[in-house]
């Protein structure tokens, strides 16, 4: 029992370390231009939610969202709320309807990234009435969504390796 708790602690510590590392990539002032569009934290949240139980996934998503809020000029807590809700939804879908396979997880990452981008576009561009906002959405946001979902495949395998340290026995328990 003690060994299981110890393995669980290591697993979640590695999840947190990976999230912090990818957050640093996301906000790095100088990086390769090919990486500048990727929203690194969304795949991490979705993949962890796909493998783990709902409440721990929600707390982890909350942590990732607060990290993201630190770096953006949005209302503090905005990304935390969205990532938490997206993680809960992803966890429910994976528990009840589909298996956590690379393609299904990648699809969920695509949907989550699209939802986040659309909400962003709506609240911070459409509602504020900025001219030229739609062209930015088409030129930059769509490419970011696609890049993020492709990156999700790499994150899937990375997190699957970490998950194997202490896998959940009853995958379909909701509590």
């Amino acid at each position: 029992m003690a060994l299981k708790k110890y393995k669980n602690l290591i697993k979640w510590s590695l999840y947190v370390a990976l999230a912090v590392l990818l957050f640093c990539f996301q906000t790095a002032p100088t990086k390769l231009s090919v990486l500048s569009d990727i929203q690194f934290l969304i795949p991490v949240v979705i993949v962890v939610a796909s493998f783990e139980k709902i409440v721990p996934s929600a707390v982890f998503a909350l942590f990732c969202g607060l990290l993201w809020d630190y770096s953006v000029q949005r209302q503090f807590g905005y990304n935390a709320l969205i990532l938490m809700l997206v993680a809960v939804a992803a966890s429910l879908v994976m528990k009840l309807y589909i298996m956590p396979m690379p393609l299904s997880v990648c699809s969920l990452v695509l949907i989550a990234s699209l939802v986040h981008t659309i909400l962003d576009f709506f609240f911070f561009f459409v509602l504020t009435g900025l001219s030229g906002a739609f062209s930015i959405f088409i030129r930059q946001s769509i490419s970011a969504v696609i890049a993020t979902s492709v990156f999700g495949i790499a994150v899937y395998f990375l997190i699957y390796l970490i998950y194997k340290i202490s896998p959940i026995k009853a995958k379909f328990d909701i509590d």
Partner: protein
Amino acid sequence: MKDFFKGKAFKAIICLFALVLGIIIYQAARGNYASLPEAVVGTVVTPIVNVSSKISNTVGGFFNMFLNAKDIEEENKKLKAEISELYKKSSDFEKYKSENEQLKKALEIKELRPDFEMQSAAVIGRDNEFNFYTFTVNKGSLNGIKVNNPVITNEGLVGIISHVAPTYSVVTTVLSPDVNIGIYNARTMSTGVVGGSADLAVNGNTKLKLLPRNTTLQKGDIIETSGDGGVYPEGIILGTIQTLKAENSGVSMYGVIKPVVDVTEVSDVVIIKKFSLKAETENTQEEEETLAE
């Protein structure tokens, strides 16, 4: 699915949701200064991001040398052409220099701004979402930084502090529509307002708004801050006019401004914590004396 809504997990999620909503409302009430949850997150995360930004600057610079070789070659050719043009202009330099010295003595223009109280800062993070290239610096309220402090480099204006936490601050750049800067052009003595535009910001440009149709400004004119409004000190170079276009309404014109500082590449900035409107005060005193006579 119904079991989920009846179970403890759903109640836990609702509690978390309420907690985050509370944080959002609390932060909204605080305005542009960081609330306690944000300050805690920032204090823990800033040292990590500080280290990672230094690593990424080194690594990114190394890889960019290979990835951007073609761009570097083109820029090299362009710079060589500029240098040859500068050589041609250098013969007039001495003449303008002596004329400038005389004008400076006559108008008492100060070269340096001893009235500036400044704080240097390093860029430690950039907004990954398209938000007009907003970035985070590693100085905050503990260093005396306040909201609306102007941010500059030795080349010119970068932006303004829009959000302050104890150990870090967020800078909104001159490309953002949230920023309105009173400007001045020395050649035509025109004034105006510069504010960002989403479609121009994508190309790294900003907008000089509401110019009259008969404006005397032209491509290449240098735009600097006028000091009007008291937010930005006067005389800080903002950029140069790239082109002048008619607004959609046809009533006025606007100018596309290329900022002198590349806000996407800036790595070190200076935050002006305090500056005096000394020139304005002296002029006001002189006007009062003239009226009195």
